[in-house]
């Protein structure tokens, strides 16, 4: 069974990447050749240097598409807790201390408690999940996450019948997250899912990417990934999980209710009030490509929303 190795080992002692990475390498090289003129940042130092390798096995639902360059995945982020520009998180997130970490579990479940990260990860088999990520701003990436189904985590807390929604909260600590000193958003960041969305096999908790432990700017030490929803639903650096009877008021929804809904399913048919959602720029490509309903995962998830007016419930 795969184990999460916490990056406590000095980087010098970390063994070279696991063999399984070779397959990824091969794909990367292919992508890199095409994108080289666009993404010379790929020549820069290894953005994952110092992050422990993870052992994982291939999981289901892999997107069979060229992976987005590591430099872009780790250097082009929206994580307002570290600043509002795309390069701020990579520059500023070194102040986050992902270890030790604990998560408070509360609400309608049989086992509410404060769990350490080690507790949460115990016995979780790590899987590779290559997912498309579509940002509400109109760009997208293909990211090889390492993680496990959210359902296998939530199941342990034994949610009760009253658990209709799951609410996640990001760390609030302006010392570690300097972006929180400005109230660009109502802190702390809160996101939520309907219970059936949370238990869906596509929904994962990611603890790594590209075979290594998550870099801070990508939401270390654990984050949500819901690939059929706009990126802002995939909340980072989670410290609290709550089972609730009613839907939470999520952060972007609170900040601009007419622009960001609770569902936030990727939907080319419903524009953002200020820009189109019909097309997206895949990072690394020059022209825009068509955005797919549910980010291309319609077959797996469209049934969750039968009878729901997706125009009104955007």
């Amino acid at each position: 069974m795969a184990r999460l190795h916490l990056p406590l080992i000095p980087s010098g002692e970390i063994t070279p990447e696991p063999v399984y990475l070779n397959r990824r390498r091969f794909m990367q090289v292919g992508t890199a050749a095409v994108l080289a003129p666009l993404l010379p940042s790929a020549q820069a130092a290894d953005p994952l240097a110092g992050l422990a390798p993870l052992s994982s096995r291939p999981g289901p639902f892999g997107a069979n598409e060229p992976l987005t360059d590591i430099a872009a995945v780790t250097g082009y982020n929206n994580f307002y807790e570290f600043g509002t520009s795309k390069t701020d998180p990579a520059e500023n997130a070194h102040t986050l201390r992902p270890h030790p970490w604990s998560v408070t579990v509360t609400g309608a479940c049989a086992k509410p408690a404060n769990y350490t990260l080690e507790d949460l990860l115990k016995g979780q088999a790590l899987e590779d999940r290559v997912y498309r990520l579509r940002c509400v701003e109109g760009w997208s990436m293909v990211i090889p996450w390492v993680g496990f189904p959210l359902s296998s985590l939530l199941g342990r807390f034994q949610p009760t019948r009253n658990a209709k929604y799951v609410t996640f909260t990001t760390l609030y600590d302006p010392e570690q997250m300097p972006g929180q000193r400005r109230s660009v958003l109502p802190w702390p960041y809160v996101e939520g899912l309907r219970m059936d969305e949370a238990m869906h096999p596509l929904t994962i908790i990611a603890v790594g990417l590209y075979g290594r432990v998550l870099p801070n700017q990508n939401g270390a030490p654990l984050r949500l990934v819901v690939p059929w929803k706009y990126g802002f639903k995939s909340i980072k650096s989670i410290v609290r999980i709550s089972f609730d009877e009613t839907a939470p008021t999520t952060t972007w929804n609170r900040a601009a209710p007419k622009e960001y809904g609770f569902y936030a399913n990727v939907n080319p048919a419903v524009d953002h009030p200020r820009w189109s959602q019909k097309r997206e720029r895949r990072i690394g490509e020059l022209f825009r490509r068509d955005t797919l309903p549910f980010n291309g995962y319609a077959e797996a998830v469209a049934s969750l929303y039968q009878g729901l007016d997706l125009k009104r419930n955007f």
Partner: protein
Amino acid sequence: MPASLWRIGVWGLLILPALWTIIGLQRGSLGPDPVEALMIASGIWALRLLLLTLAMTPLQGLSGWVWPLTIRRQLGLAAFFYALGHLLVFAVFDQNLDPAAAWREIVEHKAVWLGMLALALLLPLAITSTRGWIRRLGPNWKRLHRLIYPAAILAAIHFGFQVKADLREPLIYGAILTVLLVVRLPRGWQRGSRTPGHTTIS
């Protein structure tokens, strides 16, 4: 220094942001989304140059220097070119040169529409920026060129509409624009000095 050399020197400076951006594109230092970087660079420089253009008359009034007025038209024209470049990047890379899609995007989204309107207002100003047109239009030239005020206001609002949550930058530009417009309210200095090339008292 002869006037033509002076003008060439000013153009040399005005082209630097474009040059810088193109070199960045070549070297790949514009980040993972170079198209967005191009949109931002062209848009922000168009706006900066518009504000700079508007700053020249107050600067002349405060300092008594003449040179701000001699470069004013160049600044305004450069603002137009940067905005044109911005539209070009939008049409080619954002809209894949699909005119129907571009048109839909412009009319369906207020933010883009405002930018388009700002550029449309600048177009006649750019066309009539030559000495020949100044002579031909006479006092109407100045009247026509007051369109820069609404154009700058629309451009600043357009900028504000593009931002997701962090309004700091647009607010700074908006504040500078407000100052530049407010100082025009009292007629502190003679209107005649505002006309480039020659003086008319209207």
